[in-house]
């Protein structure tokens, strides 16, 4: 079939869906939706529809990104805008069928907003609500709105027109288009994408390879997972364009094994591309032949580093090697190779579909376009967001995120995962772009954004990241292998109240050595969380040296106790204590045996809020 034929079929199917005479029910069943219980919601909907004998179409879609309100269900009745409902459980799902489908009561209280033309009284437009208004949905345009297992949906929304356009262009023209768009690597480092492609195109040696880095290892980040689960073709189209441009015949997607659903969606998408002649020999009759292999990672964070990733594809231990030579000249099996991040490739598809100028409409001078972030941690509206680069951290945390959970005090926002840093309140008005974040001591990173409040201990956070990088260090070079271990030991001492004077200076000294001496990005950036917390939260380090953990997190420095005049002697904490550290008769004041107490905090958790008799204290 020709591409025009495929487009016609896709448009027909999409139109039939949008003009469907029966209601369309979309349920977000990406990993986040499933973990919130979306599968049970689908079952409940099917049961209710069957019981009521009312016709409706259930479609499983990906993730809109409103993770705080999962599971999400969107219902579109003929001639009406779609209504998106949040926090849907099986009981609510059943009621949605009986109330909205059968009786036409849209249950406005549960609705987050409407999508599409028309209004429904009492329900705002979804994209005008505070969480979505500041966002610009480009990379995520299809997420949560199309069936990710159906290639026709992607094509109907303009998919693969970027590839078709690229196939009619000279390679230099494509690289120029990417250059004018100002696209920089979305994996974190921000290297101009067009340069990488140019180097590879010009490098001698055949065959050439292109690789999609989907080894999203930063803890606290799930942008790539969500995109692959919700709109896999947008990434695959970018990989094809990449391959065509640099003259490769083979491409690899290296995806973490921890993302089983993303892998499933990729395999499914690839099979559909094969059916439609979008991958394989002589793609769309253009003479361009290209094949894609999916490689499953095996649980090594360092494999996100490009040379380690290549070693892993080759079946070796995922250890980085010195660069140069860069992969663009000597990569997979020693051949010229381009490695691009998932979101970079999805951006490439868009640039070719819509043009460089369209892409560069948003962003700041040196950071063009939009960027997705996983906004998580102590924020009210956690989720997957997409914003124009240059937006301030405040607009993200307070605007989109709605502020801090429980209206507590903001302390820091962490960007860039274990390679990034913690930025304090004073920097909330900084723009989010590659340069500003680097100046502040952090990095853009792949898009993890973890919000921390007054209850987060910054020394503990620094130790947490060091624990991570130290365990993930591949051990090849000394500064990283031993330096991170030393830093970890010093931080552990500090969090256990065994810190000594001069520890902070020693940490800074070792950090510098690790930064300068390490072979790859893992080691070079591992000290960032430590250095930024020292830079912005030094008072917390000093408090620990004096035996206090101001946020009451570090176990060695805290104690739980029962406030005598608040305790009602209800025995709830006594029964809940896992180690039998609490004693006291019924209706008598209870006490905690500090020697037995393991500081798990269960007593504080279970003490009824109206009593509030358990408190956590630190210091002498």
């Amino acid at each position, binding site marked *: 079939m020709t591409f025009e034929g495929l487009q016609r079929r896709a448009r027909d199917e999409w139109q039939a869906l949008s003009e469907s005479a029966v209601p369309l029910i979309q349920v977000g069943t990406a*990993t*986040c939706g*499933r*973990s*919130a*219980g979306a599968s049970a919601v689908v079952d409940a909907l099917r049961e209710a529809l069957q019981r009521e004998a009312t016709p409706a179409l259930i479609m499983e879609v990906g993730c809109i990104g409103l*993770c*705080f309100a*999962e599971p999400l269900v969107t219902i579109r009745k003929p001639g009406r805008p779609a209504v998106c409902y949040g926090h849907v459980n099986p009981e609510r799902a059943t009621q949605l069928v009986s109330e909205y489908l059968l009786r036409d009561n849209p249950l406005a209280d549960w609705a987050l907003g409407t999508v599409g033309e028309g209004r429904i009284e009492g329900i705002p437009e979804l994209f005008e609500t505070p969480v979505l208004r500041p966002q610009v949905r480009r990379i995520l345009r299809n997420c949560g709105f199309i069936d990710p297992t159906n290639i026709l949906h992607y094509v109907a929304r303009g998919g693969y027109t970027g590839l078709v356009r690229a196939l009619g262009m000279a390679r230099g023209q494509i690289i120029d288009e990417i250059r004018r768009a100002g696209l920089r690597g979305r994996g974190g480092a921000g290297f101009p994408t067009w340069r990488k492609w140019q180097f590879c195109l010009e490098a001698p040696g055949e065959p050439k390879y292109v690789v999609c880095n989907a080894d*999203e290892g*930063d*803890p*606290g*980040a*799930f942008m790539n*997972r*969500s995109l692959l689960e919700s709109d896999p073709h947008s990434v695959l189209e970018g990989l094809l364009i990449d391959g065509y441009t640099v003259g490769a015949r083979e491409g690899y997607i290296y995806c973490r*094994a*921890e*993302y*089983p659903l993303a892998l499933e969606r990729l395999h499914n998408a690839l099979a559909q591309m094969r059916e439609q002649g979008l991958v394989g020999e002589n793609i769309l009759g253009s003479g361009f032949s290209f094949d894609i292999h999916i*490689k*499953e*990672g*095996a*649980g*090594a*964070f360092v494999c996100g580093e490009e040379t380690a990733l290549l070693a*892993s*594809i*080759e*079946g070796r*231990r*995922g*250890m980085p090697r010195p660069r140069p030579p860069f992969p663009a000249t000597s990569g997979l099996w020693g051949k010229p190779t381009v490695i691009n991040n998932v979101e970079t490739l999805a951006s490439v598809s868009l640039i070719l579909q819509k043009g460089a100028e369209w892409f560069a409409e948003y962003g700041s001078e040196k950071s063009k376009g939009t960027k997705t972030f*996983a906004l*998580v*941690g*102590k924020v009210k509206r*956690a989720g*997957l967001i997409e914003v124009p680069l240059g937006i301030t951290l405040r607009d993200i945390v307070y605007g989109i995120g709605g502020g801090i959970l429980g209206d507590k005090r903001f302390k820091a926002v*962490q960007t860039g*995962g274990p390679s990034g840093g913690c930025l304090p309140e004073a920097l909330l008005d900084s723009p989010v772009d590659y340069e500003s974040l680097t100046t502040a001591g952090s990095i853009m990173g792949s898009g*993890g954004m*973890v919000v*921390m409040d007054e209850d987060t201990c910054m020394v503990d*956070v620094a130790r*947490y*990241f060091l624990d*991570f990088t130290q365990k*993930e260090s*591949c051990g090849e070079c000394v500064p990283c292998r031993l330096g991170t271990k030393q830093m970890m030991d010093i931080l552990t001492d500090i969090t256990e109240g065994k810190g000594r004077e001069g520890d902070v200076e020693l940490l800074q000294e070792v950090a510098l050595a690790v930064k300068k001496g390490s072979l790859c990005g893992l080691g070079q950036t591992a000290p960032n969380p430590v250095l930024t917390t020292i830079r912005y939260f030094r008072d917390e380090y000093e408090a620990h040296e004096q035996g206090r953990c101001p946020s009451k997190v570090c176990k060695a420095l805290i104690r739980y106790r029962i406030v005598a005049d608040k305790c009602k002697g209800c025995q709830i904490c006594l029964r*809940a204590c*896992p*180690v039998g550290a609490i004693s006291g008769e019924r209706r008598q004041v209870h006490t905690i045996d500090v020697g037995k107490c*393991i500081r*798990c*905090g*269960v007593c504080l*958790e279970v003490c009824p809020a109206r009593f509030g008799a358990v408190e956590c204290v630190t210091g002498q």
Partner: protein
Amino acid sequence: MHDRIDAILSSYGRDRANLIPILQSVQAELGYLSEEAMLRIADYLGVPESQVYGVASFYAQFRFTPTGRNRIMVCRGTACHVRGAPRILDEIQQVLNIREGETTSDMEYTLETVACIGCCALSPCMMINREVYAKLTPTKVREVFSKGGQEQ
């Protein structure tokens, strides 16, 4: 066991690049990588045994001892950490009386931690087999295991 390993091997070419996919398939079949399995893989690919073990021991995914019937993976991602993951892990260790990396003596559970499940908005969370348990508290953990950990 020979037949099961050989059946897997014969579906792959004798190419070094297939080493990790083969290890993954064998582990999926046997639940872990036995010494015998690794020796057969080395022989099949013509790769030194030391290198097969070197690769297998490098990646966190591979195990060298049989695991329990249910695999618990506690997320130690950043979002989970700041929202109390260490307490969740402590609680599970307490309830099951095993440490991270260990298996209960009745072979019911193996307890592991993973870098990040990617469900950060629903933190803290853990996975038991392929099921994700979200927004955990120590109390919820106890409820999960008192029900046998198979439904939420």
